[in-house]
């Protein structure tokens, strides 16, 4: 049954991509696209119901044998049959992911109907969106890393296509290229990890990997190497240190794309992959520590850049990087279900924030700079309301979804004993609250800085955009209650549901400690919000200006995003360019030189040959002709053509013959 889930978006993308661009009306196009994702969502719900009712926690469906089995000698000297199937695996983790992808995807598709209504390439947009949904579903449903890799590359491709959707704009085309190339770096890690898995275990099957790890038939060092290589892939796809630079630039794409791909789904693929292979990562403790540390550092580091951005979407982009860092912290401390829980709630509130930001941008006729906003809460009250819900959720205000998921991660980090990671997480939480409310206050409160031209067209977005926002706001508000922790009287239903695919995780903390931790993180979140209020509403941004003036060097460093882009451009891109130029020069001088030399030699030899031909061979032939002509020139005179001349010759001949006969005989 669940194998049908990815089928609908595939049909949708084929219809819209092949026929829709030329023949379908806008109405037909969005009916097909939204319908495809809607059907997919229904299939996901049906599959979930089936999973809940059946006793079997994992269903694997093999469509066909992709690469048939062949005997291979493994790295340890053992022989094994290696084969890949085109197989789908449906378990609780896949169920959560398919629901998030199709559910949030459906809402974003509906929103896009309004947001993209004026775009010329309407069918192309929806074809790409459906293709992305298809690839993402393949990624989360793949039963082995080979099938996962199809989806992994597919979402990367769609990300490229959609970031560069307005490809006539130079910055968009470049951002698409940057995203794709940065992802390729990570994908190399993924490929190498997968190759090493084949060499060591002879399987890419998630079940097979888990079984092999549990049997202990893999060396710990090798497991670490494989896990770190795979995690490199995850840092590329999920925009973590060091491969995060593409995500802020990816905001060049249309806002629904930012919401779907660069907030809710694709960037969480790395989180999903680590959760899927949790056995391997757990077995190699080192890899897990690396995941936690990278996650915690990214969470704080990206949040700090969110402080100074003025583009509303770029703030959200850095926020996304930071929040995915949280997910990796959750995974890294062994609380895999907590990481996936945050993935889900983040999908709700971050896509909500992006779409609401899109609604603001739409209302202001394309303005993205927060310095040219302000005081919008009266003009776009519905957008303001849903934006507020999203911001409260991401800031971790108690009662909303973000609080429960973030808190579960922080509790797990504290319980695991990695206090440094916990402290970084807590710091990041406060920073998140601050920059998110800075965004709110700059956009919706304070003085009106809207340009007169944009103010003229200022309008609330149409219903087709507001309704998905309202649904997402509802999910952001109550989505956390399915993972209500025990200490607050909940059943941790979400973690128990996921236990069959990500393993059990018990935080061994006293109830009092846990409550205390919650209070601390709540206090930090509220402090962040108050800080933003103090700086941007009460004093209208003056404290921030004073701070920037006092710590000029630090401010410059953060505004330029720590010069990482410059560093990458200078060292890596510059290095590659330099190497390329060196190769080009080698090509020009040596290779071209050799080729041109060979051509020159050939021409010389052939001109010699031509000389021989014209002078010697032709000379001989012409010489024979000339000799004949010269000798025949005299004789030709005799042939006058006049009969009487011939007759005279005959007579003379007779006279000579007769006189010879007479004189001789």
């Amino acid at each position, binding site marked *: 049954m669940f194998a049908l889930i990815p089928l609908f978006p595939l049909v949708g993308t084929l219809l819209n991509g092949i026929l829709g661009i030329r023949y379908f009306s806008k109405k037909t196009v969005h009916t097909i696209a939204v319908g495809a994702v809607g059907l997919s969502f229904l299939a996901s719900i049906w599959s979930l119901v089936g999973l809940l009712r059946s006793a079997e926690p994992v269903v694997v469906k093999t469509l066909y044998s992709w690469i048939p089995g062949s005997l291979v000698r493994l790295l340890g000297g053992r022989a094994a049959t290696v084969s890949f199937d085109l197989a789908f695996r449906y378990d609780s983790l896949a169920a959560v992911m398919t629901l998030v992808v199709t559910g949030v995807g459906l809402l974003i598709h509906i929103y896009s109907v309004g947001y993209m209504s004026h775009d010329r390439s309407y069918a192309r947009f929806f074809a790409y969106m459906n293709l992305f949904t298809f690839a993402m579903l393949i990624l989360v449903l793949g039963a082995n890393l080979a099938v996962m890799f199809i989806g992994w590359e597919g979402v990367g491709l769609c990300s490229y296509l959609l970031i560069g959707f307005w490809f006539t704009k130079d910055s968009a085309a470049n951002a698409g290229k940057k995203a794709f190339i940065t992802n390729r770096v990570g994908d190399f890690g993924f490929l190498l990890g997968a190759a090493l898995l084949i060499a060591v275990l002879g399987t890419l099957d998630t079940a097979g990997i888990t079984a092999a790890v549990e049997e202990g038939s893999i060396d710990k060092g090798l497991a670490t190497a494989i896990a770190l290589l795979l995690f490199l892939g995850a840092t590329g796809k999920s925009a973590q240190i060091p491969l995060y630079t593409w995500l802020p630039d990816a905001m060049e794409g249309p806002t629904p794309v930012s919401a779907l791909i660069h907030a809710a789904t694709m960037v969480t693929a790395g989180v999903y992959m680590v959760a899927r292979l949790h056995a391997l990562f757990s077995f190699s403790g080192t890899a897990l520590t690396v995941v936690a540390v990278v996650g915690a550092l990214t969470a704080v580091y990206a949040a700090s850049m969110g402080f100074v951005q003025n583009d509303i979407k770029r703030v959200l982009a850095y926020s996304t990087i930071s929040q995915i860092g949280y997910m990796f912290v959750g995974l890294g401390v062994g609380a895999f279900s907590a990481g996936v829980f945050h993935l889900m709630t983040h999908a709700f509130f971050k896509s909500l924030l992006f779409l609401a930001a899109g609604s603001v941008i739409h209302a202001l006729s394309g303005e993205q700079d927060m310095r040219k906003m302000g005081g919008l809460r009266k003009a776009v009250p519905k957008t303001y309301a849903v934006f507020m819900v999203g911001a409260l959720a991401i800031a971790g205000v108690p009662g909303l979804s973000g609080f429960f998921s973030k808190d579960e991660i922080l509790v797990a980090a504290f319980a695991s004993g990695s206090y440094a990671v916990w402290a970084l997480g807590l710091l990041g939480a406060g920073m998140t609250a601050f920059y998110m409310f800075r965004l709110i206050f700059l956009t919706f409160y304070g003085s009106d800085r809207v340009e007169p031209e944009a103010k003229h067209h200022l309008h609330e977005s149409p219903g087709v955009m507001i309704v998905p926002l309202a649904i997402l706001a509802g999910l952001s508000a109550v989505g956390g209650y399915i993972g209500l922790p025990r200490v607050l009287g909940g059943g941790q239903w979400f973690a128990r549901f996921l236990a069959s695919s990500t393993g059990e995780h018990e935080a061994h903390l006293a109830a009092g400690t846990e409550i205390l931790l919650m209070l601390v993180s709540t206090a930090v979140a509220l402090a962040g919000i108050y800080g933003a209020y103090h700086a941007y509403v009460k004093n209208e941004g003056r404290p921030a200006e004073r701070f920037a003036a006092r710590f000029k060097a630090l401010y410059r460093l953060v505004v330029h995003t720590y010069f990482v882009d410059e560093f990458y451009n200078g060292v890596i891109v510059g290095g590659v360019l330099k190497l390329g130029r060196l190769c080009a020069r080698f090509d020009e001088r040596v290779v071209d030189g050799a080729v041109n030399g060979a051509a020159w030699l050939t021409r010389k030899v052939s001109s010699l040959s031509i000389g021989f031909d014209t002078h010697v061979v032709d000379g001989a032939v012409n010489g024979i002709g000339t000799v004949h002509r010269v000798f025949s020139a005299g004789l030709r005179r005799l042939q006058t053509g*006049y009969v*009487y001349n011939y007759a005279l010759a005959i007579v003379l001949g007779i006279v000579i013959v007769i006189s010879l006969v007479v004189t001789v005989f």
Partner: protein
Amino acid sequence: MIPINAVFVFGLLIFFIGLFGVLFRKNLVIMLMSLELLLNGVNILLAGLSHQLRSPRGSIFAIFVILMAVSEAAVGFGLVLSYFRQKKTYDMDEFNELKG
């Protein structure tokens, strides 16, 4: 009785008149007629010598030559006619297609 010398003189005279006509006249018809003179000059010699030597062979040969001359004249004038149709002239100076 005609003296044999007169026969020689007459025959050779006729022959050389014909030879002159063939070699130096430019009119095709006159050249053909001169050819007849050439043959008949020889015929006179043949007939005269046949009479002198009291042998019929020369006369018989002369009759053969006359037969030849008749057929030659028939073929020759046919050629002349077809030539004339092409060139619209009897002038031999025009007939130099075989010039090298």
